[in-house]
């Protein structure tokens, strides 16, 4: 979190990955923890995390690890706390008055909620794409350039913008109208712009909160292809209501469920199962997962 601003480019990326790996090895003892086979290095270690809003527990006692260069899907019925958990990963919950996070949430071994950690620094490393495309009311160029500008990134802004748009698989569609307002784009393009915007600041992780729920199937397909491409260089955590989407793109899936506390009337989410996506969908170990993924409930 305290590293100097990195130069853009592939060598910087490789460097950062190496550094990230080192940090991880140094701090998290590997081996004795239960984790699924084939798991690569973990970037997030979520350990006993609960989140409450003004005292009402939204999600309770979540523990699992999110792997590097993997797509991790969080699925489950509405209100199960999957978005809430996602928003903890880059401390967006800080913006909600009354939100409180307990437990340990480590990113490369660093406690994200340690008192000396600045939420703004966290968000520089961990980008986010939202449910509804939220382009800024500015030109396409300025949408992309906003992040690098506020972060004070050095380098040719034209290059930075082009690289981000190329990574977002949007360059060819918009290269001739970079100065036009982003509101003139289609919904699918806007969402890819938001992804490209998040990529422009060279984050390590992209969090996606139901990124395709407002899009048609063709745009959804484009974004899914894009996610698979991005997995090479980034780690992705996606919340989705779309079971097929989770099955299509993710490497691992966490299934959440929600229960109603009769006494307080609060709904609290819990994680039921976390495993390789294939296993969650074909041979889940919990019957609640099976009922959900086969469409019997939810």
């Amino acid at each position, binding site marked *: 979190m305290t590293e100097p601003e990195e130069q853009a480019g592939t060598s910087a990326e490789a460097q950062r990955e190496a550094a990230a790996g080192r940090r991880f090895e140094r701090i998290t003892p590997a081996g004795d923890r239960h984790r699924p086979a084939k798991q690569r290095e973990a970037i997030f270690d979520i350990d006993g995390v609960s989140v409450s809003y003004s005292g009402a527990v939204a999600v309770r006692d979540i523990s699992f690890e999110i792997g590097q260069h993997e797509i991790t899907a969080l699925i489950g019925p509405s209100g199960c706390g999957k978005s809430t958990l996602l928003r903890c990963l*880059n401390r*967006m919950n800080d*913006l909600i*008055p009354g939100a409180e996070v307990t437990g340990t949430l480590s990113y490369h071994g660093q406690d994200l909620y340690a008192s000396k950690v600045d939420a*703004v*620094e966290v*968000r*520089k*490393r961990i*980008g*986010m794409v*939202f449910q*509804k495309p*939220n*382009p*800024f*009311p500015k030109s396409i160029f300025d949408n992309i350039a*906003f*992040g690098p500008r*506020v*972060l004070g990134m050095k380098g040719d802004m034209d290059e930075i913008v082009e690289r981000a748009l190329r990574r977002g698989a949007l360059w060819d569609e918009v290269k001739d109208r970079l100065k036009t307002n982003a*509101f003139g784009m289609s919904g699918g393009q806007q969402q890819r712009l*938001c992804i490209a*915007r*998040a990529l422009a*600041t060279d984050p390590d992780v992209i969090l996606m909160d139901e990124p395709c729920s407002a899009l048609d199937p063709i745009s959804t397909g484009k974004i899914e292809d894009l996610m698979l491409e991005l997995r090479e260089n980034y780690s992705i955590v996606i919340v989705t209501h779309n079971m097929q989407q989770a099955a299509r793109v993710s490497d691992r899936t966490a299934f959440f469920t929600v229960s109603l506390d009769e006494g307080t009337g609060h709904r609290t989410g819990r994680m039921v199962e976390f495993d390789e996506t294939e296993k969650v969908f074909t041979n889940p170990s919990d019957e609640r997962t099976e009922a959900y993924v086969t469409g019997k409930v939810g």
Partner: protein
Amino acid sequence: MHGKAVGRQDSRTRLRERGFRGMLLACLALSALMLGVLLVDVALDGSSSISTEFFTKYSSSFPANAGIRAALLGTIWLMGVVILFIVPVGVATALYLEEYADRSRWYNRAIEVNIQNLAAVPSIVYGILGLAFLVRGPLGMGNVLMAGGLALGLLVLPVVIIAGREAIRAVPPSIREGSMALGATQWQTIWRQVLPAAVPGIATGVILALSRAIGETAPLIVVGAATFVAFDPSLSSQFTALPIQIFYWVSQPQDDFKALAAGAIIVLMVLLLAMNAVAIYLRNRYEQKW
């Protein structure tokens, strides 16, 4: 399914509909007519006074030699003071209340309620406040233009704050989230995303506030605006303004002064309508559709 044919409205309902619509139209026509008559009346009375000399001459006890130079300059200076006062203070207050204030704190709610109430306080009260605090009392400026401008500024400040808050609130939270998620600080988010998006709404509010301030007479009288000024005003000089000049001329017995007053009214109206036109243009042209 056997559908029932869509019958025609029965004639009584239709008549009632028409009657109601006609009544509303009549009310509109009445107010428009009154405004029209007033405008035409003023135009007829005042058009003869409008000439180049009308703008270049100071007031005089001889109608033939009298002009609105001091009053017009005074009004322009006053509006300048009002703008410089209300824009930073009003926008900062609106930003604090919308972006920073924690509504669970009683004092923030108290400020909110008070600002709503201040917008409804009669203007003469602001005049008395200006007299007590600006002209005399703690600041002791004397009855100078600066004091008049600040009194008018205080009067319209709530209008700007309320309009500013509405403009800021109209910027969707998703924009703030998008900005913060990129690693922007709260201040960067406000300065680079929220404020630019809110500028058209704020500008509209400022202009509407000015068009209220430009016609105010009562607070200026209390603050001590002069009725007879034969020099170009400055911040620290005595001053007059168009509404004061009009008020003074109307109260004179000679008919010639009434024509001068009508001329000054035309100038004031043109200023006012022009400002409102700019406000409407800004709103239609730049207001962001989300």
